[in-house]
């Protein structure tokens, strides 16, 4: 008889530590693939599992190996049908090991593995320099609130429902005819009375009978517990997601020729971060993409990021388009409206006035939040970093920023600059939670 051990219930993820060590080791490379995937994929896809190729750098395991293209070896193979000794067989053109190579063709390098959502976000957040609390908030899926929902037969002791438990216990005691204390008391009283009388044969017999009755009842009482585990009921709680309204996020971007690859990549990360924030806050988040040159139009995500259009730059057209979409599809009473605009700051100077007018007069009343990022060259960052002067659009937006607290502007030269745009948004979050 062998010893059996059932290991199936042992904790899973025994190799989690190894996985974490591996991911840490390949961090730089994984970060690059995640960034590539996020910058080429859809915004909403950032927030899920990603399959990534096996990183090559830093994860090779070298050892002294024979070079395959040197020396003389013998291959011993089964299944000879036509060969005779002395036959010459030309080597295949690829120069590999020939007959011995099939089966070794799938190298360890060309496989992909899946990173969990959390791991992806970790990598995505890395050079955005988010505070830890914000990271935690973004990684959290939904907030749940436990809500009473009936009773359960199992649970934690703190959740015992005393009323229901006692009701069950009572019913069981009646059904099983558990002797009551009063019955016992009555017999005890009788016994005491008989024992106080002078003994004779009749009373002695009666006492013995009563004693026996008494013990039997006692035994029965002991066997049938007052409260049995089967009686116990617990309050059951259902985790219910907090009621969240819907949000719509407008992505506005200047797509004229001056927005290059780097600018678009930064803009995309900016949009992804805002979207992550919104999907945490709201149960339903929709995205609207509006691109503009000298005229604006609503497009799908792919067109938004990958199609360039030639033309001048008139920012107000995008704001007008946004206003039109809101009026048409997103009544502010039902939707929380967020907007994120990315641009390199070019605009016809006369148009900036028009933008102020639109934002101040119409849009800011409808929007929960409006974030504007101006993507500047890294070399310019120290010139423009703090000063108020800048493009005409920047100056115009600065005026609005002062007037409306939920309007944010920022110049971005590197990924780390993105988060401060949202700082206020994230800071306000706990307060908003409480009010919700």
């Amino acid at each position, binding site marked *: 008889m062998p010893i059996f051990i059932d290991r199936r219930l042992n904790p899973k993820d025994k190799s989690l530590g190894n996985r974490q060590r591996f991911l840490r080791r390949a961090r730089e490379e994984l970060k690059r693939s995640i960034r590539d995937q996020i910058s080429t994929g859809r915004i909403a896809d950032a927030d899920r599992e990603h399959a990534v190729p096996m990183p090559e750098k830093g994860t090779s395991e070298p050892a002294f190996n024979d070079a395959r293209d040197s020396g003389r070896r013998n291959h011993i193979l089964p299944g000879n049908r036509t060969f005779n000794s002395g036959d010459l067989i030309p080597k295949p053109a690829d120069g590999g090991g020939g007959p011995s190579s099939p089966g070794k063709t799938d190298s360890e390098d060309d496989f*992909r593995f899946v990173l969990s959502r959390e791991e992806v976000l970790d990598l995505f957040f890395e050079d955005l320099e988010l505070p830890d609390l914000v990271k935690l908030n973004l990684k959290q899926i939904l907030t749940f609130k436990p809500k009473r929902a009936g009773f359960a037969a199992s649970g934690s002791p703190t959740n015992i429902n005393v009323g229901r438990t006692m009701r069950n216990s009572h019913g069981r005691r009646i059904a099983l005819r558990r002797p009551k204390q009063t019955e016992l008391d009555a017999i005890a009283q009788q016994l005491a009375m008989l024992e106080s009388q002078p003994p004779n044969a009749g009373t002695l017999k009666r006492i013995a009978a009563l004693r026996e009755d008494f013990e039997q009842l006692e035994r029965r009482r002991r066997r049938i517990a007052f409260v049995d585990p089967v009686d116990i009921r617990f309050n059951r709680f259902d985790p219910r997601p907090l009621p969240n309204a819907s949000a719509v996020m407008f992505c506005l971007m200047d797509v004229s020729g001056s927005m290059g690859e780097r600018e678009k990549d930064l803009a995309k990360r900016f949009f992804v971060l805002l979207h992550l924030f919104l999907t945490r806050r709201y149960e339903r988040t929709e995205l609207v993409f509006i691109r503009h040159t000298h005229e604006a139009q609503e497009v799908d995500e792919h067109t938004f990021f990958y199609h360039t259009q030639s033309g001048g730059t008139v920012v107000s057209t995008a704001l007008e388009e946004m206003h039109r979409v809101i009026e048409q599809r997103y009544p502010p009473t039902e939707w929380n409206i967020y907007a994120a605009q990315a641009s390199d700051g070019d605009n016809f100077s006369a148009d900036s006035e028009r933008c102020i007018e639109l934002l101040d007069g119409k849009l800011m009343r409808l929007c929960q939040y409006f974030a504007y990022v101006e993507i500047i060259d890294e070399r310019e960052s120290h010139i423009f970093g703090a000063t108020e002067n800048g493009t005409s659009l920047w100056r115009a937006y600065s005026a609005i920023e002062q007037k409306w607290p939920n309007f944010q502007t920022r110049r971005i030269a590197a990924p780390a600059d993105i988060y401060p745009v949202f700082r206020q948004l994230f800071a306000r979050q706990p307060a908003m939670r409480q009010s919700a």
Partner: protein
Amino acid sequence: MDRQAGASRLLFSGSDWDFKKLSRVYDEIEAIGVEELHLDIYPVQMEIISSEQMLDAYSSVGMPLMYRHWSFGKHFLYNEFLYRKGGRGLAYELVINSNPCIVYLMEENTMALQALVTAHAALGHNHFFKNNHLFRQWTDADGILSYLNFAKGYIAHCEERHGLAAVEAVLDSAHALMEHGVFRYHRPPKLSSEQQREGLRERLEYEERSYSDLWRTLPPSQRVGKAEVRDESVVGRKKSLNLPEENLLYFLEKNSVVLEPWQREVIRIVRVIAQYFYPQRQTQVMNEGCATFVHYTLMNMLFERGRISEGAMLEILRNHSNVISQPAFDDPRFSGINPYALGLDMMQDIQRISTEPTAEDRDWFPDIAGRGDWRDTLLEAWANHRDESFIRQYLSPALIRKWRLFVLADGADQPHYEVASIHNERGYKKIRAALAQSYDVGSKRPDIQVVDVDLLGDRYLRLQHQVKDGIMLDGKSRDATLRHIRSLWGYDVSLAAIDGETGATLSQRSTRDL
């Protein structure tokens, strides 16, 4: 009536298993195995695991506990990828050479499969582990689990104390040299017991704590006639360091001057584990052959005795034939010689030679042909051989013909392969020798040795690669491995490739030029 009696004799019916059935089947199989095949086994501990746990075990070199390292994470991802893709099924079982012998059974297996696996692993492998001389002499079945437990704890302790990165650096370097961390010729010392190791470590820690440079009061020795002393001392110092030394990890562990005590211990752990697996690599064909032969024979005996139903037997045979399939070399599924198939065929061939030999067999195997005692012959072979010697001794012409084996000579500078031998009178011996040679693990790995180092001088470590048959080292991985040696040694390292026949230096590589 008769049929009913037969039905009640069945060990199990249906495909679901439970612990009662497993235990009943094991007892029956063990009884038959001991009685009919004279097997001698360690007590068995069976563990039921899920597929994920099997993947875990795969990636930590098949051991139930293992220290943490990123490379195991990488292998896990790779195995998982293959498994999910469907490219590879998981093994039905995994068996560990320990006392008691641990056998992992997958929970998804049907009862018939569990019976097969029990015979294969708990009897076949188990007998081989307990009786084969390599395992008896070179590994310590009683101590391995407690040693691994110690290793895991020790490395976790080091990670806490010295940081992940520092431990990882040592492990990376040690893993690169794992192949060169085994003693091939003299036996490794027995694993010391856990208490002894504990005591040793405590002493080390105490010495570390109480070390004070102030106590070093001896004046430095005066050097006179330095040059002459040096010339003479080359021979002396080689002798004192036991050079040449082919166990690179052992050499670094004992002689590197830059390693801290804990780093030496980590290297030692890697070395001990490499040594533990060395016999397994030398006995792949025999080990699998023995297990396959045992399960095939025992399952058939059970079936003949009416203890297994026809349906279950059919399932067992199907799995059996999957395991021992050997595609021909030009088949797209071909991926080398299947050790299960070769081992089983050779052992059944021995059985045939003992019981119904042909004239040819009497010629080739006069000492076993027709003697009829195939059990003893097999037991003897299992106990005393490794793959290389087993094939050299027992591969028969009949089997070479059955397999249609041929030898293909492959010179890297030739535009074509040459068929050197085929299954004919002239070829038998050559094929047998070539096949045996290809299973000689020791001669297959590059022969690299430490030849010289001047510990009191520049500490330049010189390694030598004895090139055999003109097979050089792969340049990229060689350089990376040299870097690892350098990081363990702390000073520059050079590797010279010396032609084994002519003694000419073919190439020279040093970490100074990397």
